[in-house]
């Protein structure tokens, strides 16, 4: 197995989960209805759990720093999350659309990773996939409901989709070791993932009365550490406590 390649893959997955998890947690206490408050909080907790597990594997198998340091003490340019996940949450429609795009991609990614030649990652993938299944179920329910509920809900969902779609395509930005990952059987590749993702989301979007914009160009950069202006304030907020007393024990 090419270690650098596996490291790169896991780091971007962990960063996605951590940053997306933090964005989801912003609904805790202010969800539009109680069940949604609980749902977003629960999904957030799962995501941060996934990030923790991946960071732990990075520490254990590749000698990287411990999960707290990896999660909270790196420079902005060292984060490999996609820009989709770092964007500040515009409104509930945007939160749902991001959730829909992201969790479908995650579900397929972890499904494919069950066959990874990297045994620890394959074992974790089996577990994580079962949890994401519930996240997808939640996203689909609300996208279908609000896509076709009222004129206002429809137009807000469509506007959110139009804004988020180019960023969602950026989820599949290939990393520098794409070919090595494919050759060594660690991961089947971002191209295959994107193709399966599009096949999966298309019928649901149609059923919801929404439309995917055609000829959309992906907004990329996150995987190489080039981020939107929304990431820096988020990292600052996330690491505020840990930075107030570096090295403190909890």
């Amino acid at each position, binding site marked *: 197995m090419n270690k650098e390649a596996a490291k790169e893959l896991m780091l971007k997955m962990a960063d996605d989960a951590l940053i997306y998890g933090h964005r989801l947690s912003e609904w805790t206490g202010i969800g539009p209805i109680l069940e949604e408050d*609980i*749902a977003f909080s629960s999904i957030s*907790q799962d995501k941060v759990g996934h990030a923790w597990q991946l960071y732990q594997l990075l520490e254990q198998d590749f000698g990287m720093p411990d999960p707290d340091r990896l999660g909270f003490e790196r420079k902005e340019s060292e984060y490999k999350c996609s820009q989709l996940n770092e964007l500040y949450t515009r409104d509930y429609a945007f939160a749902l659309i991001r959730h829909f795009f992201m969790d479908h991609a995650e579900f397929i990614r972890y499904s494919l990773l069950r066959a990874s030649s990297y045994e620890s990652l394959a074992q974790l993938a089996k577990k994580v996939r*079962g949890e994401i299944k*519930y996240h997808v179920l*939640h996203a689909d329910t609300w996208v279908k409901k609000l896509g076709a509920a009222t004129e206002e809900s429809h137009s807000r969902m469509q506007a959110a989709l139009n804004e988020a779609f180019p960023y969602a395509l950026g989820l599949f930005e290939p990393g520098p070791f794409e070919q090595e990952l494919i050759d060594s059987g660690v991961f089947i590749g971002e191209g295959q993932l994107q193709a399966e993702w599009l096949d999966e989301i298309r019928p649901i979007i149609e059923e919801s009365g929404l439309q995917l914009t055609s000829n959309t160009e992906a907004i990329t950069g996150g995987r190489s550490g080039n981020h939107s202006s929304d990431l820096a304030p988020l990292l600052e907020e996330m690491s505020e406590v840990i930075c107030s007393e570096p090295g403190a024990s909890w």
Partner: protein
Amino acid sequence: MLGAGRQLVKNPMDMTQESIEKIKEIWQALKGVEDPEIPVISIVDMGIVTDVTIDETGRVMVEMTPTFTGCPAIEVMKKGIEKKLSELGVKDYRVALNYKTTWTSNRITEEGRDKLEKFGLGRPASHEGEPGMEAIASARCPHCGSENTTLKSVFGSTLCRSIHICHDCRQSFERFKPV
């Protein structure tokens, strides 16, 4: 007790009678470690403990698999196991968390399911490897036993619970999710 049985037949020739007895004793003691989020059920009934072994140096190894990756109770349970081992006089031990065995709700013992229901949590439906929508949505009310219920939300007060409503006793209830 599935895990204990599996352990005992795995390598019976390699272990001394003393080790076999010790392992039995440890499994029994671990039945006294509770799941902190559902304090009526032990981590053994939950299927969280996957293996107990003793190596040739006498070191005890307890392996556990988490119910949910983000479960905040994992560390508490790990400490609970360590405390129990100390109480048994085991000095050299290691408690390891891994995903060699994937936890699913099918791992909860029948006794455990009864305890969940008594506690007020609907029992998870058994499934063939992956719960379908039917298994996720249909639940038996733990208050009155009615099957005439509706899924209200797949997320509840902890990661492992969903929220349902019973149309017969007209109460809402939480149910342990089938995963």
